[in-house]
């Protein structure tokens, strides 16, 4: 009886991916417990969102990909409208207007766009697959350029960059001509000075501090210096769980969210880093494998995008924490504290599993 229920529950679930994800989540909970100064409430809070995320994952995994295809445009338009709403009636905190107050709970429409943008682009490009012209790539580009402009204006450079990356992945995998890619790269480079002038002072600062953190050891450089100290002093095997002095004694800023990797790295050292990185590599590898096995263009693009975006998050976060990229405010997926981010990621894995579990049925359509 129980066995049948279990089988039913795991029907659309990719158990391999699930094991990897769960392992990373366990690591994340232990790290969060340490990073929060043994705050069990915070850990339970995170656990609640993991639970919610799992339910949503289970649901999204059961939904057939063709429904996503159908819902792509409506969800995208809804997301865009919410972004506009943020612009006018959004709530500000720390000088950024990112939140929308929906009475019972607050939400960040930019988080929805993380999924809505690639789904919409994959939908559009797969629809135009047999008769694709240059104009189609331009239209597809607008799908991400529009929301990115709104998001960067909030300002939320991190999410803006991630959605941009996610858009590029889709264009690239859909077969965007190399000439366009090279052209776009050159264009972007020539636009760089213009973008620079439109960055907020704190964003410019972060980029400048990256070049020389010691310039401002107590200001913006403080994050980078303290996280480098945390990681470096962790050494090969780390200081041990709950024993990281940088983390435990408050030297690390934002250590339950964006800088949680520094806490992990201080306590578990290089070996811990390699194990966690290995776990992430397995998740990415499994995702890309699912993508390559997908039977149609929409699911292929969508699945690959989920894996690649997951990688991008990890890379930007770790590069930022270890001081090879500016501090852009990107959480470490599956590890950092944060309900919205956690649920969105688990939903995205749900979609991935949906692609995987429905691949045999899609082929003939």
């Amino acid at each position, binding site marked *: 009886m129980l066995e049948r229920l279990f089988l039913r529950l795991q029907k659309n679930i990719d158990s391999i991916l699930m094991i990897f994800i769960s392992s990373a989540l366990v690591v994340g909970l232990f790290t969060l417990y340490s990073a929060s100064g043994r705050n069990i409430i915070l850990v339970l809070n995170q656990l609640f969102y993991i639970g919610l995320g799992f339910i949503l994952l289970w649901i999204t995994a059961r939904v057939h990909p063709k429904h996503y295809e159908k819902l792509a445009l409506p969800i995208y338009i809804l997301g865009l409208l919410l972004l506009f709403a943020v612009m006018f009636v959004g709530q500000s905190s720390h000088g950024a207007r990112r939140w929308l107050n929906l009475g019972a709970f607050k939400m960040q429409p930019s988080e929805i766009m993380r999924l809505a943008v690639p789904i919409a682009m994959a939908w559009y490009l797969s629809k135009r*697959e*047999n008769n694709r012209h240059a104009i189609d790539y331009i239209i597809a580009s607008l799908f991400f350029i529009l929301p990115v402009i709104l998001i960067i204006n909030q300002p939320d450079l991190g999410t803006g960059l991630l959605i941009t990356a996610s858009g590029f*992945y889709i264009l*690239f*995998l*859909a*077969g965007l001509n190399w000439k366009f890619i090279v052209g776009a790269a050159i264009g972007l480079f020539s636009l760089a000075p213009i973008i620079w002038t439109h960055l907020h002072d704190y964003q410019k600062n972060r980029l400048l501090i990256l070049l020389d953190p010691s310039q401002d050891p107590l200001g913006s450089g403080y994050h980078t210096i*303290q996280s*480098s*100290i*945390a*990681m*470096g*002093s*962790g*050494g*090969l095997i780390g200081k041990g769980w709950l024993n990281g*002095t*940088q983390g435990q*004694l*408050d*030297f690390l800023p934002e250590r339950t969210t964006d800088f949680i990797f520094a806490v992990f*790295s201080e306590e578990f*050292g*290089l070996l811990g*880093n*390699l194990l966690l*990185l290995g776990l992430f*590599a397995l998740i*990415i590898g499994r995702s*890309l494998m699912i*993508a*390559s096995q997908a039977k149609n*263009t929409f699911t*292929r*693009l969508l699945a*690959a995008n989920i894996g*690649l975006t997951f*990688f991008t998050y990890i*890379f930007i976060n*770790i*590069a930022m924490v*270890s*001081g*090879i990229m500016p501090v852009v405010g990107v959480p470490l997926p599956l590890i950092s504290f944060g309900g919205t981010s956690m649920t969105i990621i688990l939903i995205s894995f749900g979609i991935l599993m949906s692609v995987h579990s429905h691949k045999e049925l899609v082929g003939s359509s």
Partner: protein
Amino acid sequence: MSYTKNSQNIYKSRYLFKRRLALLSGLISIAFLIVIGRFFYLQILKYDFYKDLSENNRIAVIPNVPNRGLILDRNGVIMADNYFVYSLEITPSKVTNLNKTIDNLKPIIELSAGDLKQFRKILKESSSLDSVPIKTHLSETEAARFAANKLRFEGVEIKSRLFRRYPKGAFASHLIGHINRINEEDKEVIKKLGWQQNYKGTDSIGKLGIEKYYEARLHGTTGFQEVEIDANGNSVRILNSTPSIEGDAITLSIDSNLQEIAENAFNKYRGALVALNPKNGEVLAFVSRPNFDPNQFVGGIDVDEWKVLNESLDKPMLNRAINGLYPPGSTVKPFVALAALENDIRKPPFNIKDPGFFTLPNSGHTYKDWKPYGHGVVDIVMAITISCDTFFYGLGIELGINKLSEFLSQFGFGKATHIDMFGENAGLLPSPEWKQKRFKQPWYLGETVITSIGQGYTLVTPMQLAEAVATLANGGLTIQPRLIQSIKNSQTGKIETFKNKTVRELHFKPENLALVKEGMMNVTQPGGTAASVGAGAPYKIAAKTGTAQVVEMKENQKYNPNRMNERHRDHALFIAYAPAEEPTIAVAIIVENGGHGGSTAGPIARKLMDYYLLKKVSSNKEENKVGPLESEYHD
């Protein structure tokens, strides 16, 4: 056709997808390698570097400042100790608006203009992380009132600080010296001596006197507390702690009672006194007047107070005992007399018939005796007793400046005594070579004449003069004079004492020494220049009076103290030792503008000796009973 094209398209697009996905996977691998490389760099290559940084972050070393060692007199009377005071302190780095904070403090704690001025001064000299006192010696009411308002003042706190105290105030201040806040110069010295570690947390250092000379012993050893701190600087727990070790206690050789008698005896006069035990070199009294209150300096002296001290014509900051330079005047005569006797001239029964002046052969230049018509028949003993200038003029010429200078230098004239105090002046003992070097001029015979009676170029410090008298009293043996008797190790309780150190051992013919001593003993007897000093004493005092000119007299001008500006009056000098037969105290006194040595400096010596030898305190009334004798009006 359409189908074929479609399926071809699908095939093509899947192939392209897989190729591009493979390319991206390659890029992902490269990205992972970069990140792993970074890990390797941070956690393996730079591990030691970051480990140190992390330890520095985490551990704060808080110095435990030691109690400064006590200074006691030979009987254990406290001359310098420490006490706790509450002080209100501000750490500038923790305060957002300093001026506003100070304004807000004003209604709670009374802050005088002086407090604020002092605060600004210290603020300028310290780093923003230092805790700077804005008001010391808070009353209990003030401390309580601040405690009630504490939350309003971030970066302001009440600390209990150890303060140095000199319970006897200005008493013996030049001897004890004082401490003051460490300035840039002191920091250099501390660095040069390699004391930085031990001076962490210490804010004051000995600046003068014993406090300065014995700084290394008095300071003690700073302890350290290693505290784990969080990012806000709050201590989380103590990791390691070494206690501080209190500075050693110093016992001075002076007797504060004797010192007090000496200081009081000076009354309003400026001058200096050094009393020694000739047998062991111990300084029994060390006076420089006027003095200052060392308590003013503790915690930093007020600018105005310093101005008063520094600009006063009386020069209260000048340590006259080791820095005051005075012509020895007639006090040099016993030494000159011994020089002659040891060179086999002027031995009794040699005598002169003093006409009241001396004529330099070949020049006709005359030098007057202080007594207008002379002393009559004078031999060498009498010459000392009555201080006959004429006798010494001729003696000097016959002996010659080279022999005279050489002999006097044996008594320490022109040489530092190396007393345990910094900044001692070496004085000046002239010689032809010195003059050639200094003025590029030859030595004149006339200069020999006046050198023989202690005028001219010769300059001595009271300390030097005291050492010379002690040597004479000791029959030629100079024991290194010193200001302290012992040092008590605060940790082991072991008391370190000092062996007598012989500086010089001179051998004189006993009969020569006896003649000089006889002359000096007669000085305090009826007929001597200080007869009143010896009057009624149950012990014998050997002495010599002296007068040092402050302004030069024209040849025919008569010295009249009543018609002169007080500061132009002669300095009075007096050297003595007692009991004359077996001396245990030798003293040198200078009273600036005191006139004649026998009448102003002499009574001070008598009071000192009465107390030292008889434990008797002679009152001022008693002194007046015996008025100065006629012979004392000049030396």
